[in-house]
């Protein structure tokens, strides 16, 4: 015997094009919703990971000094400002400081890079403190240098790939004509470290004649200590700027929130349009089948039976659209990632759209709710049909 599900399914098949278009509308809304929820989750995860991968919560640089290799390159290797190495001793005294690592970035012009030359950047790091702070870095080949004055280098994966270097190979610091030996190649991290060439701090200071200078100091704060309290103390130091990673995160999140409001508004509109589409489709279907509904009622079907049938049709449409939309969102996550990256003022590394089963289930829940709500009116209207009037109206 045919059951109510089969009747509802067959009813939808009677107007295939209309049902398909309604499903497409719901699928699009579900796609937008899953993608946006995935973005909301993925962006914060990526940003947190990028900041955690820095290894330190506070970066102290000389006033006006670009603290990122990318910024340094954009400025053509210029704009470096220095602070004296004794700042490290001053900062170390603060009780909030857990670990501290001094750094010296240097850039040299290489006339043989590209048609009109280019810059190569080197980051001098202290082998006693830097690897400990960046303990999550893994090696594809080799290991960290241990001698602070050794003519040795550790290369980020992309830097090594560009220079085609492996452990044991020599590497030339152009302009200075200094040869160093590659002792380690890092695995990819998806961060700025991939493109960095790390050298021992004292060797960089000596090679570039900056024996008492630093461009950055990374600080890891004790877990129980107050970061803002330490920041306040650091602001008192002369001629330094304090870059707090929590501030960076907050600033980025504020920048991104505008874009987020915009895309969530689009999602809301998409959902409203799909609700109207569903109500319209089911209502039209009810109007066209008044005579049929009248006959069903005259044969003994109750108002609740009719209500259930129409409601079920709405649910089938919504669940089908939800399933298609969720799969589409999974399949186009990379594309969505690319599009969102173009829209945002800053995008961290790694996947920006992270879709997991709970997000998909949440979207199903929302879609089913939409289905239940948008099906109420047409189902109620169908349930209230008077059999004789309905049969007569269509005959006339």
């Amino acid at each position, binding site marked *: 015997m045919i059951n109510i599900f089969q009747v509802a399914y067959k009813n939808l098949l009677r107007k295939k094009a209309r049902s398909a278009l309604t499903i497409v509308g719901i699928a699009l809304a579900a796609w937008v919703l899953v993608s946006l929820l995935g973005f909301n989750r993925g962006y914060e995860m990526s940003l947190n990971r990028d900041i955690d991968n820095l290894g330190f919560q506070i970066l102290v640089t000389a006033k006006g000094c670009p603290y990122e290799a990318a910024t340094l390159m954009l400025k053509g290797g210029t704009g470096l400002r220095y602070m004296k190495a004794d700042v490290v001793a001053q900062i170390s005294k603060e009780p909030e400081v857990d670990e501290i690592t001094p750094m010296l970035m240097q850039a040299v012009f290489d006339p043989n890079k*590209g*048609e009109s030359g280019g810059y190569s950047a080197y980051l001098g790091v202290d082998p006693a403190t830097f690897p400990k702070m960046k303990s999550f870095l893994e090696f594809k*080949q080799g290991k960290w240098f241990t001698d602070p004055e050794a003519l040795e280098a550790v290369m980020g994966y992309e830097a090594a*790939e560009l*220079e085609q270097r492996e452990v044991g190979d020599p590497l*030339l610091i152009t302009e200075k004509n200094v040869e160093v030996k590659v002792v380690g190649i890092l695995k990819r991290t998806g961060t700025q470290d991939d493109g960095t060439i790390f050298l021992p701090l004292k060797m960089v200071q000596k090679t570039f004649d900056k024996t008492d200078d630093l461009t950055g100091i990374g600080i890891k704060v004790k877990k129980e200590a107050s970061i803002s309290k330490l920041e306040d103390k650091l602001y008192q130091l002369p001629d330094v700027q304090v870059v707090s990673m929590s501030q960076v995160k907050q600033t980025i999140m504020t920048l991104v929130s505008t874009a987020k409001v915009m895309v969530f508004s689009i999602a809301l509109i998409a959902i409203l349009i799909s609700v109207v589409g569903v109500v319209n489709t089911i209502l039209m279907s009810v109007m066209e089948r008044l005579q049929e509904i009248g006959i069903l009622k005259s044969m003994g079907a109750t108002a609740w039976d009719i209500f259930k049938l129409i409601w079920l049709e709405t649910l089938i449409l919504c669940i089908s659209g939800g399933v298609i939309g969720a799969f589409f969102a999974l399949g186009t996550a990379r594309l969505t990632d690319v599009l969102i990256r173009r829209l945002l003022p800053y995008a961290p590394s790694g996947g920006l759209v992270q879709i997991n089963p709970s997000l998909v289930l949440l979207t199903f829940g929302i879609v089913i709710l939409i289905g239940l709500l948008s099906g109420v009116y047409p189902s109620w209207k169908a349930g209230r049909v008077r059999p004789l009037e309905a049969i007569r109206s269509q005959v006339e």
Partner: protein
Amino acid sequence: MNSGGADMHKKTRILWLLFLLLVLPARESRGAVGCDLNDPDRDVARLFPGSTGFKTNYVSIDKKGGPALLAQIEDRLGDQFQGLYETIDVPYTLYEVFKGKEKIGYIHGVNEKGQYGGLQVFLALDLNGVIKTFYFQKLTSKYGRELRDSTFGDQFVGLSLKDFYRYDVKTGSTGGDAALEKIKNPVPEAEPDFKAALRATKKNLILVDEFILDNKYLPYHQAAGGTKS
């Protein structure tokens, strides 16, 4: 099988295909690094004066022919692909250059391990695979100035893969090829980078022959005792 069952199978296959097309690209992939022109608009116009446009194609040995093709390329090169970065999945960028609607040549670059860093050797070729311009896009060397001087690159102009088939990339022996013997290393101390430049040129020409010239120069390799075809 009845027609209903066949239809169902067809629909299932289409659904699977859609699923694969949609879901597989979402997987994270991090392949090897390729070798692109830094500024294609500027560089193509400079390497092919009079050209009006270009088309960019991406090819990899992996996708074009897999391990069998790699073995053939290594055989033609006379050396194995080496190290962390000379791998089967390197995406090569091949620029087809046009003057109006007419194709006038190709530009192709390869990465090569040099003595102190990576080399990027680009060749501008005519439609027969003859070198029109030799260009080091990147070169880390103590003797970069001499090697990037136009007098060095000009020595390659007019050569094709035919001239390289006897060149031994391991030893640097020209095998008595008169055209290759004319190519002089400007600085004796730069020998490793000089050899790397020649290996990169031979590799570059072999890849272009395999990717786009339908192995036009393979008979020369076979005549020289190449084992595979």
